[in-house]
């Protein structure tokens, strides 16, 4: 009971504040700006057309985000492994990783559209670009975090680079890799939604649907779609967290309860 009460209480406060904003803060003509929670739920779950549109779009966007994250994590780990081999590799590649981080993705989305069209693969590319940097930096940090004592023990036996990587550096890097994944999963979902929003053409996702509802001033559908995309983000984040706990929770401090 004690576990459930605080979250329920906070949720209650949020919903209460929402109702207050809808009915007290807004007069009836302006109520469309923030429909009440029960109206949003009704549209999102019980209106057949809106429901299939919204949840279909969420799934489409979710698939894009998932694939983008998968590619970004594999690529990020591979690049970090390469960078961990020698400082000169790190120094050569790092600036480009930073470029990746600082380029406003939205500015290059039109370019991606021109070069690769507006279909599924372009959307995945946007996600990969946006989610790659945290995977690289966190993995590199993790690879370097193996204690010197353990490195010495391996040096004593002249182990190959590959063995050192497999037996020491990669396992030691797992907590950092999952930290990177937790950051990248959110970015990937955002990338999928926003990329979809700006592409406007090609296979539709929740981003475009939100824009369509906005244009039609269909505020209940709009808010239902917004809530649905938040749920997508939350579900993705929780999923990564759960996987992380299974993989490293046994031995890492982060898995221990206070």
């Amino acid at each position, binding site marked *: 009971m004690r576990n459930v009460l605080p979250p329920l209480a906070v949720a209650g406060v949020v919903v209460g504040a929402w109702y207050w904003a809808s009915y007290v803060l807004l007069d009836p003509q302006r109520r469309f700006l923030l429909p009440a929670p029960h109206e949003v739920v009704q549209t999102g779950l019980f209106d057949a057309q809106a429901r299939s549109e919204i949840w279909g779009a969420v799934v489409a966007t979710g698939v894009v985000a998932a694939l983008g994250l998968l590619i970004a994590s594999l690529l990020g780990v591979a690049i970090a492994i390469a960078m961990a081999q020698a400082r000169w590799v790190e120094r050569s590649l790092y600036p480009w990783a930073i470029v990746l981080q600082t380029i406003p993705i939205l500015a290059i989305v039109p370019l991606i559209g021109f070069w690769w069209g507006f279909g599924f693969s372009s959307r995945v590319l946007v996600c990969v670009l946006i989610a790659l940097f945290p995977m690289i930096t966190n993995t590199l940090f993790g690879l370097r975090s193996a204690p010197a*004592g353990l490195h*010495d023990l391996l040096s*004593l*036996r002249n182990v190959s680079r590959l063995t050192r990587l497999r037996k020491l550096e990669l396992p030691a890097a797992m907590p950092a890799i999952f930290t990177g994944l937790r950051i990248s999963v959110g970015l990937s979902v955002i990338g999928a939604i926003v990329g979809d929003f700006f592409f406007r053409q090609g296979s539709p996702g929740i981003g475009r649907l939100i824009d369509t509802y906005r244009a039609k001033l269909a505020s209940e559908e709009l808010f239902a779609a917004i809530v649905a995309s938040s749920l997508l983000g939350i579900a993705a984040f929780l999923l990564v967290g759960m996987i992380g706990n299974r993989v*490293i929770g046994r031995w*890492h401090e982060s898995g221990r309860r206070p």
Partner: protein
Amino acid sequence: MTTLVSEIAGVSEMEAPALALVGVHKSWPGSTHALQGIDIEVHRGELLTLVGPSGCGKSTVLRIVAGLEDATEGDVLRPLDPPGCVFQQASLMPWRSVVRNVELFLELDGVPTRDRIEPVDRAIELVGLDGFRDHLPHQLSGGMQMRAALARALVTHPEVLLFDEPFAAVDELLRERLQEELSRLFAVQRFAGLFITHSVSEAVFLSTRVAVMTARPGRISTVVDVPFSHPRSPELRFDPEFVALTRRVSTALRDGAGDLNEMSS
């Protein structure tokens, strides 16, 4: 220039030492000699301890023997098989259980899984960690982690064992018990041991010979023989001859240490 020699000239023993340093100098780039004229040899069944103030280069000597550092000058005889090492941090892999940690070197040597079971079990029994085979390091106390590290070092039956202040982070009572355990293991396995410590009583209790080092540059000032047989009992610490030896070592240490302001942290 260093060369690996297979025999040390002038050794009067029947068999060659398991490890030796002859006339070894070590200096780091841009600084004065860290080590000067180090002569050490250890045979099987001998345990040599290096005692000295912080910064005198004891760990450097150990690392040169292990092959983690090179000597700037002099000859180094290293053991053919990789030595077992126990450092101040137990350095167990936190993601592996005790069993998986202890079997690490057998695994790296390519020993198949079923052939690892027996030696690993024996090593774990030897250090008294029987009921904790599947525990993770974070579930073990500091002393137990150190014993696991000891088991890991022993499992390949190395000719040479190197210790770098392994018991420094452990409380006194546990420390004494770990010393007694090591003495027992030494009596059975008869490895050639090189042990680094700050503690004079630990040095005298554990070794067959104690070498006292001075700092800046690192040199061996005195060598004291400790004739008691292994395994050694806790009562030995109060034996008059033991106490006299402790005094000798302690005096040699103080003489070489210089005044308070010269001593490093």
